[in-house]
């Protein structure tokens, strides 16, 4: 398995719901990989997180075999899920849509930690707090 990389595709797909129609088929089809095999594997690995949007990075090798890694959902998506919000504020400085506690920040920071370039949970929490403020959430001390 002398793997030479020939392609790299980044997608965001709801967990458990990949299908070969566009946009998954349109993005991966030109790479010549087995789209059904990708969809089946993605869905089986993510079905427990049903519906949450997951970033996935697919690496394609010279012989059309492939691999993929799942990333954690964006902080804003996790914050909305945690707080049960429909969407963030259009004017985050003026219109606050809710507030987030330190415990909630820590919970999300722990989920995001593998993908963040942080060496401590505190710095991960401050990055999540920044995402929270930019979507119109107050951060409780």
């Amino acid at each position, binding site marked *: *398995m*002398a*793997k*030479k990389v020939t392609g790299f*595709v*980044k*997608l*965001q*797909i*709801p967990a458990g*719901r*990949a*299908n*070969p*129609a*566009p*946009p*998954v*088929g*349109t*993005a*991966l*089809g030109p*790479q*010549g*990989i*087995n*789209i*059904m*095999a*990708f969809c089946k*594997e993605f869905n089986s690995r993510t079905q427990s997180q049903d519906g949450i*949007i997951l*970033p996935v990075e697919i690496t394609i*090798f*010279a*012989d*059309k*075999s*492939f*691999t993929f890694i799942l990333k954690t959902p*964006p902080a*804003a*998506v996790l914050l909305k899920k945690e707080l049960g919000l429909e*969407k*963030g504020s*259009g004017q985050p400085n003026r219109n606050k849509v809710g507030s987030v506690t330190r415990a909630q920040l820590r919970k999300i920071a722990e989920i995001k930690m593998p993908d963040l370039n942080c060496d401590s949970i505190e710095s991960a929490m401050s990055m999540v707090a920044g*995402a929270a403020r*930019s*979507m119109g959430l107050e951060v409780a001390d």
Partner: protein
Amino acid sequence: MSWTTVRVRPSADREAALAALFAAGALGVHEDGDALVTQVDASVDLEALTAAVRAADPGAAVETARLPDVDWTEAWKRGVRAHTVGALTVAPPWLAGAADPARTIVIEPEMAFGTGEHATTRGVLGLLQQVLRPGDRVADLGAGSAVLSIAAAKLGASRVAAIELDPDAIGNAEANVAANGVGGPVRVIQGDAALLLPLVAPVDLVLANILSSVIRELLPAIAAALAPGGRAIFSGIMTSERDEMRAALAGAGWRVTAEYEEEAWWSAAAVRA
């Protein structure tokens, strides 16, 4: 089905633009460089979608274009071919049709390496036909799709251990072994080749289509696993690494008996000198 491509170049708030696309009905988004690209069917209101993206990220540029209707569940197959090396052919199921099953290795191209589309796979297939003797016991290190293990079985190996570390490859390898009717001689085993090789020893032939650095680390374990008169086929070696690899093999007591070169890849059959 009629599809429209929506390409968004976000401005200040990429996350908000992305969220707006999903809220408006996108089933997925392709991050194409800086752009966010999706396709929506006729049930999605394009004006509403464009307005929602601009409301979320006022500086975002939104372009839409009709997308030609392509059935990607079938169209990707056009890029996969059958490959013949000597008397053996590797083919995906839809091209295997009337081919002689005794000389055809049917591989479903999935996540596992070894679809036949790579020169290193073909290099081992070529050398295998020169050095495999009927009745050989074989270990295939880094078996991937099990393409080489299946070939060894079809050429007359009495038993083959298809050893693969990558869990993503195992299901594909097992399905390929079953589809080729070689479930008797071929066993797919998940794990580290250095640890498993002593457990399947002695063998008459080792196949190692991996990477030159990994092969060099495995040389002592391979030598220890071989029965007297045993042989090995090494592949996954760039032609630029050939001289270094030759020296490493000679230094470890191996003699190269046959070579195969294709594109930038060198494969070699060797015996213990």
